[in-house]
């Protein structure tokens, strides 16, 4: 049987200074008309490489296609001339990317850019504009007649992804490749975009190749799934098959690591709160980023703050830590107000409240070794530890977070993302704090690494009696980890309560929307959720 697109035994190498990297080895898969195939893998698994090979996006050198063929309607596109391939790209096979902002040219209007896609393939200008209008309407851009002549920065993230989709669909391609199309988007927007893709696929009958790291996304849209690890396909089958009965140990590990399945924590009871925030506000000029937030954190408690981008959750963290000055309200740490505290007193309190940042690549100084990074805490607060004991303490801390202490003279770039976040946690622990604020501390990490870091945080909480203020956008993650959950929207706290109450019995519409939009890794559960979501939309 002839498939629409077939990748056979594809191997791609990259020749780097450190030696040859086998990006993919002997990868074989196929895609039919009207079908959605998901390539699932973590960072570095080579999941994007075969798509790049299809679109002729691999730079050779350093890349080299060692073996294999890519058959499109029976013809090997790797043997085609550059001109033939250019003709194919965009017209027959189109692609959308993770970050729509960097793939839209900021100096041209969106109408021009979408029309250019068509004029480049020979459509007359007037007709192209007409079709652009149609497309904008189809992908759901409100007020499209006027918006057609505006620039990319005037759109929101979700709308930009819609624009990219419009551009990709301009020539009615047979295949749409979507490389992590929703990773940069909020969950509610993600649900809308995935829905749009499915609708469009049903209308046009195109084949959809979805590259993702998110099992929830796979469950939502994929018919079949291919799981990749270290450049090889470890498992393939229908989405339900792979989820229900994984064969390969890697797939099993991946599915086990998905958050949102474990037992929910019981509320921590009784004690005096360690942190008590009352009516904390922060305004930038006329814009209120944080509107009188009130919450408490008990000792040994994990309070999660969830919300979409722009909900003010990071602003809250920054105001507590005095990285930003609050414009109103108070934040009491053991009865002392952080907002009005004098610098000298604040300096002492820095020891007690620490922060772990979102992106460990950026929060560690690239020019300092791990030893320097962790021991900086002792340089700043010399009263903690005499210099002669620094080294043994750093060893101890590295042991504590599960890193090899003999690596302390290495630099951050020599570690993987998960290891870097462990270094960042070790740094926070160096001051022996009682409260750690985690600002999206695991969002940048792969699912399996995420689970490990969460385990680590839990263990440290038990051993050291820490409290966490855990800021996240990922609801399933919070479900497993937090004792209490605070939901924020547009700078305000809309709902807060014990984790069980929020997840099982949400009161606010926004919380319900958020829960409905966050995808579940089980395709059957997800199908039911989708029904529920549709219902919710109808009633709303």
């Amino acid at each position: 049987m002839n498939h629409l697109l077939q990748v056979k035994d594809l191997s791609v190498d990259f020749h780097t200074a450190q030696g040859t990297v086998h990006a993919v080895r002997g990868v074989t898969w196929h895609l039919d008309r009207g079908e959605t195939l998901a390539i699932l893998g973590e960072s570095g698994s080579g999941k994007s490489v075969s798509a790049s090979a299809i679109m002729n996006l691999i730079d050779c050198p350093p890349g080299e296609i060692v073996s294999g063929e890519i058959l499109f309607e029976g013809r090997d596109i790797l043997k085609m001339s550059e001109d033939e391939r250019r003709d194919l790209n965009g017209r027959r096979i189109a692609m959308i990317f993770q970050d729509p902002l960097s793939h839209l040219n900021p100096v041209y209007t969106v109408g021009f850019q979408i029309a250019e896609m068509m004029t480049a393939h020979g459509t007359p200008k007037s007709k192209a504009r007409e079709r652009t209008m149609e497309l904008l309407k189809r992908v759901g851009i409100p007020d499209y007649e006027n918006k057609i002549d505006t620039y990319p920065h005037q759109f929101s993230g979700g709308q930009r992804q819609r624009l990219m989709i419009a551009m990709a669909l301009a020539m009615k391609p047979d295949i749409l490749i979507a490389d992590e199309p929703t990773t940069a988007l909020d969950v509610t927007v993600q649900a809308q975009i995935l829905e749009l893709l499915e609708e469009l696929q049903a209308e046009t009958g195109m084949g959809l190749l979805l590259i993702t790291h998110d099992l929830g996304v796979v469950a939502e849209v994929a018919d079949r799934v291919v799981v990749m690890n270290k450049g090889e396909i470890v498992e393939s089958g229908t989405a339900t098959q792979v989820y229900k009965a994984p064969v390969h140990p890697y797939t099993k590990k991946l599915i086990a690591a998905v958050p949102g399945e474990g037992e929910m924590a019981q509320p921590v009871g009784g004690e005096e709160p360690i942190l008590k925030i009352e009516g904390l506000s922060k305004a930038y000029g006329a814009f209120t980023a944080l509107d009188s937030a009130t919450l408490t954190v008990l000792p040994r408690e994990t309070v999660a703050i969830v919300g979409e981008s722009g909900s003010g959750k990071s602003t809250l963290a920054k105001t507590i830590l005095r990285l930003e000055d609050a414009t109103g309200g108070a934040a009491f740490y053991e009865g002392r107000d952080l907002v009005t505290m004098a610098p000298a007193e604040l300096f002492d309190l820095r020891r007690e409240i620490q922060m772990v940042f979102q992106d460990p690549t950026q929060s560690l100084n690239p020019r300092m070794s791990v030893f320097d990074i962790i021991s900086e805490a002792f340089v700043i607060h010399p009263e903690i530890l005499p210099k002669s004991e620094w080294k043994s303490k750093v060893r101890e801390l590295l042991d504590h977070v599960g890193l090899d202490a003999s690596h302390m003279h290495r630099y951050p770039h020599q570690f993987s993302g998960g290891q870097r976040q462990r270094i960042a946690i070790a740094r926070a622990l160096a001051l022996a704090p009682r409260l750690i604020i985690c600002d999206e501390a695991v969002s940048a990490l792969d699912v399996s690494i995420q689970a490990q870091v969460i385990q680590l945080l839990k263990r440290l909480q038990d051993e050291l009696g820490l409290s966490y203020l855990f800021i996240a956008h990922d609801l399933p993650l919070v479900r497993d980890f937090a004792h209490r959950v605070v939901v924020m929207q547009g700078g305000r706290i809309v709902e807060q309560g014990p984790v069980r109450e929020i997840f099982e019995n949400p009161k606010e519409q926004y919380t319900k929307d958020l829960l409905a939009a966050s995808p579940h890794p089980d395709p059957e559960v997800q199908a039911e959720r989708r029904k529920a979501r549709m219902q919710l939309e109808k009633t709303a």
Partner: protein
Amino acid sequence: MTDVSPHNAPSEAPAIADAPPAYVQIARMLWRDKLALCAAIFLFIVVLCALFGPMLLEDVATKQNLRGRNAPPFDFSLHWTMWLGGDALGRPLLARIIVAAQNTMMVAAGAVVCAMIIGTGLGLIAGYSNKAGSQVIMRLADVIMSFPSLLLAVIVLYMLEPAVGNLIIVLAITRIPIYLRTCRAEVLEIRERMFVQAAKVMGASTNRIVFRHILPVVFPTLVTIATLDFAFVMLAESSLSFLGIGIQPPEITWGLMVAQGRSYLTTAWWLSFWPGLAIILTTLSLNLLSNWMRTALDPVQRWRLEIARKKK
């Protein structure tokens, strides 16, 4: 630089081997990059010339010998100091280049180092302090930049005595804005990075953030600019000498020698050529060395100098 050095932590835990001492690491990395090694050796020789040249060859270099007027180079029957030829008064060029190294280096290095230190300092303040302070410093830089640098030098040196010290001051002032603006722009970007925030959360003082976290990131850029500036300052100094307000004969610099040789360019090219070559080689060496240093200072790039080069 401080950044290359390993930690001076006491090695009480025998299990973890400390990195070899800093100078061994530097020497190894220099050995890997042969061009940078040549550059370092050449600069070392220039510095030796600058330190000891005038002491040893001052008399030879100033002694006139009218029989050797514009003597062509490569006449090996003459004294070795004449191997590169003689100048318009028969003075040996080789000896003069060696002696001139001192003044040239003093002016160029002095001006560049002063400009870099002051410019970087002000740039750090402008970048990290509040808006008002930054505005004052930046407008000051604008004022300096709006003056043609040579015009400023002419005015100042016309009023002051044209001594080496004054020359350094004038040239340094005219070069400050370059370092200042680069430094400020970089600081504005780096101060928003997350590792700076992380340091703030730990309670790091402003000094620590600026000197430990921001400066090491800015520094390689500034050093690269400084090496390029070196050549500019040498030439600026020679044009001042040419106008009669810089270093005056019988004192000599390379730039002055190039200027003096210009009238003989058609008949005796070597008068300008050799000192010109000295300027070019010095600048080139500095550039190569700064390029090497940028790699050596950056932990992410350092492996390029640490792994043995593979043969293809």
